[in-house]
């Protein structure tokens, strides 16, 4: 009886250790599993879906609602200074190309809602804005900071590249212009 009990305890301990090890392996293996990494490997992954509160009004915003349209997806926050600096360029691109179906969609992450609304008003951001206070989209997209910009083709897949830092910066300006053209044609 005692022998059986001992065997059962050993099996349980072994199962627990194996389970924890498997969990560790799974976590390490899936850690870099995000859209930005796949895009960096030259793939065109499907843009992770989201369904978020609108920042600029009542209701919800979902990426799926823009299927069939090219989307510039810009992650920002009101506490981010480069986000303020790049906002006029995003606004001008949105106004210039919206007739061709282009959508600029701002996703405000890890931010106080009231501050984000004030920021959007002050910077005259008229394109659709979503609010993701907890930052749930961050890990799916592989966002490492703000601002970051992705380009979603009409088929819902990411195209071109992920632009880190402000799109207005000299090192990003040409790449941004090229990506805008690519997403319009994708």
């Amino acid at each position, binding site marked *: 009886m005692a022998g059986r009990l001992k065997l059962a305890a050993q099996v349980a301990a072994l199962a627990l250790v194996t389970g924890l090890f498997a969990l560790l392996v799974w976590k390490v293996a899936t850690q870099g599993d995000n859209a930005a990494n796949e895009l960096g490997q030259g793939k065109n992954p499907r843009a992770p879906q989201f369904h978020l509160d609108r920042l600029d009004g009542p209701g919800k915003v979902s990426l799926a609602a823009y299927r069939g349209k090219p989307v510039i997806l810009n992650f920002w*926050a*009101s*506490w*981010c200074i480069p986000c303020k600096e790049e906002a006029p360029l995003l606004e001008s691109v949105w106004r210039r190309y919206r007739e061709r179906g282009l959508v600029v969609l701002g996703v405000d992450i*890890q*931010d*106080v*809602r009231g*501050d984000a609304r004030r920021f959007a008003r002050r910077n005259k951001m008229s394109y659709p804005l979503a609010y993701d*206070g*907890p*930052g*749930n989209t961050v890990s799916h997209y592989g966002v490492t900071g703000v601002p970051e910009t992705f380009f979603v083709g009409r088929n819902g897949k990411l195209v071109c590249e992920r632009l880190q830092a402000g799109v207005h910066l000299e090192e990003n300006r040409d790449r941004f212009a090229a990506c805008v053209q690519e997403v319009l044609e994708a």
Partner: protein
Amino acid sequence: MAAIVVALVLAGPAAACPSLPDLEGKFICPTCKTTLDQSDAPAARQIKAYLAQRVAACASEAQIRDELVAQFGTQVLAAPPRKGFHWLAWLLPLIGLLVAAVVVSLLVWRWSHARPTEVEADSNGRAPLDPELERRLDRELTRFDG
């Protein structure tokens, strides 16, 4: 006069406004994952400013907590809330300690109640020698004596 005093005592102390340093230790900066009092990240500074504003308005701690959770989710809390699934975070360490205490107690009981070995010790507390070894030892000693 007495009635006023009784009424004041029954009403209890007025709820004090929460203190800012205390609150800053109870919430997490969403970008750097440390408590606000240990962070100087822009996101942390923004939430600190929000807290300062709410403390100035004398909002209760519960109210401030609810407002922040509504915006940032429960991950903004430094300690998990005591409800639903989050109870696991509070209970698992206690369960672990309890299980460890039971296991240690069982082992101690088992060791202290272990059956004596079949080989009885002699009066000096030493175990007797193997008979064959004893005979061999006697032979050797005899040879030395001889």
